[in-house]
């Protein structure tokens, strides 16, 4: 057993092993981001649709489902962030004297700013959780104000929370900025993960690149549509 653990520890401490973990957790987070966006877009279907969806998430597996998802996501984010910070530190240490003249031939700006887009997204996740999940500094947890009658059950009024949340301009603007950086992060991360997992080929690499850009754009447009619709076009207000 310990021989297996020794090997796993060596795997984690190797450059490629750590990158494979970043790719796998990145893939999990990528799928989550897509699902999260599709769920959120229910706000455009109406209060009943998104409140029922929210209630379903909260009560799946007798309330255990949401915690399984939360712990899984926390682990994925934790590994993704810790491993990339360690990798980035090694990368910085690998070139002591910087070039006097810096030039790039093919690398994208997104790829060169992954650590910064990533850390901003991390800060955004913390803000986002405090905003809508822990509900710090707002009244969204107040049952008297944020209840909704769903077929005779009293459930949390997700719809009203989202409308109120994005009616405050600074929050809506920060969300849009975070989504721009997320989109940049995804545009490199999507095709990159296939390369790291050893799945790209001469034929599929250009496809993965295009799919990555399309995915990043989809997430950007989908997620930004909500704060923009509410703040700029007054949706639901």
């Amino acid at each position, binding site marked *: 057993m310990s*021989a*297996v653990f020794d*090997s*796993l520890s*060596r*795997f984690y*401490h*190797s*450059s*490629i*092993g*750590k*990158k*494979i973990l970043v790719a796998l957790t990145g893939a999990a987070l990528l799928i989550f981001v897509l699902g999260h966006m599709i769920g959120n877009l229910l706000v455009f279907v109406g209060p009943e649709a998104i409140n029922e969806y929210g209630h379903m998430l909260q009560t799946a597996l007798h309330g255990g489902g949401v915690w399984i998802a939360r712990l899984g996501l926390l682990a994925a984010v934790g590994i993704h962030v810790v491993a990339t910070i360690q*990798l980035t530190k*090694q*990368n910085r*240490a*690998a*070139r*002591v*004297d*910087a*070039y*006097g*003249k*810096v*030039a*790039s*031939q*093919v*690398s*994208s700006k997104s*790829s*060169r700013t*992954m650590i910064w887009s990533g850390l901003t997204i991390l800060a955004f996740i913390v803000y986002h959780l405090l905003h809508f999940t822990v509900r710090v500094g707002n009244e969204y947890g107040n049952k008297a104000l944020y209840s909704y009658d769903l077929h005779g059950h009293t459930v949390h009024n997700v719809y009203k929370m989202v409308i109120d949340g994005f009616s405050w301009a600074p929050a809506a603007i920060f969300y849009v900025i975070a989504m721009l950086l997320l989109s940049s992060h995804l545009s*490199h991360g999507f*095709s*990159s993960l296939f*390369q*790291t*997992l*050893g*799945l*790209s*080929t*001469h034929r599929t*690499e250009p496809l993965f690149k295009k799919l990555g850009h399309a995915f990043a754009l989809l997430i950007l447009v989908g997620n930004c549509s909500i704060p923009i619709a509410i703040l700029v076009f007054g949706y639901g207000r």
Partner: protein
Amino acid sequence: MSLLNLQLKVWRQNQGQPGHFQDIQALEIPDHASFLEMMDIVNERLIQDGGDPVAFDHDCREGICGMCSMTINGIAHGPEKATTTCQLHMRKFRDGDTIWVEPFRAKAFPVVKDLMVNRSAFDRIQQAGGFVTVRTGAAPDANSILVGKEVADAAMDAAACIGCGACVASCKNASAMLFVSAKAGQLNSLPQGQPEKNRRTLGMVRQMDKEGFGNCTNQYECEAACPKEISVRWITKLNRDYALASAKEAFVGVKEHAEGGD
């Protein structure tokens, strides 16, 4: 033939000491000269003026030995695609240009002097697995091991790597993945390389990590700078081979050295 007047910003450094850029005028350089010949002319004049000539690596000057290095205007081996510094000609520059000439910068490539760096980290990576173990004796019969034409061609593409280190120099993270993947991939794709495949992959990657190279972030600057146009698909293969070798090592075991019956 026309003559070029250039302004060079050349990195000067003695081993173990901090370096600096020196401004050097390179006047009346024939545009037929190669970049190294331009440096020769500059050095001749430095010596005549009692100065310290710029140290740089060179050997065959035919683009096949992998000895010349230099990062020119931020690009390893300069702006010409698929070309080593020795095969880069001054006609690619314009009169009055300012040219930055720097060593291949990486912690794993310590500067020996000026533009010369010590690339023996690559030799140690090769010693960690970049070979096949064969019996000595008479040469085996040709075609006693059948190799598909496509496989042989691909292995030849990887074998074109001259180990110059441009991949490391151009990588934003000073990663050696393109070199290691070409050297490991060449043997890992041939039947002769199969018996030692896992051991080779693990050994070379571990030595690469030990040497202090950075980690690949899939930006492919290496491929763009490579004078031999080694494809980053070799890195894809190395990632795959490493994952499989690690799994085999964890759950079955990979012998570090050939043993009886292995």
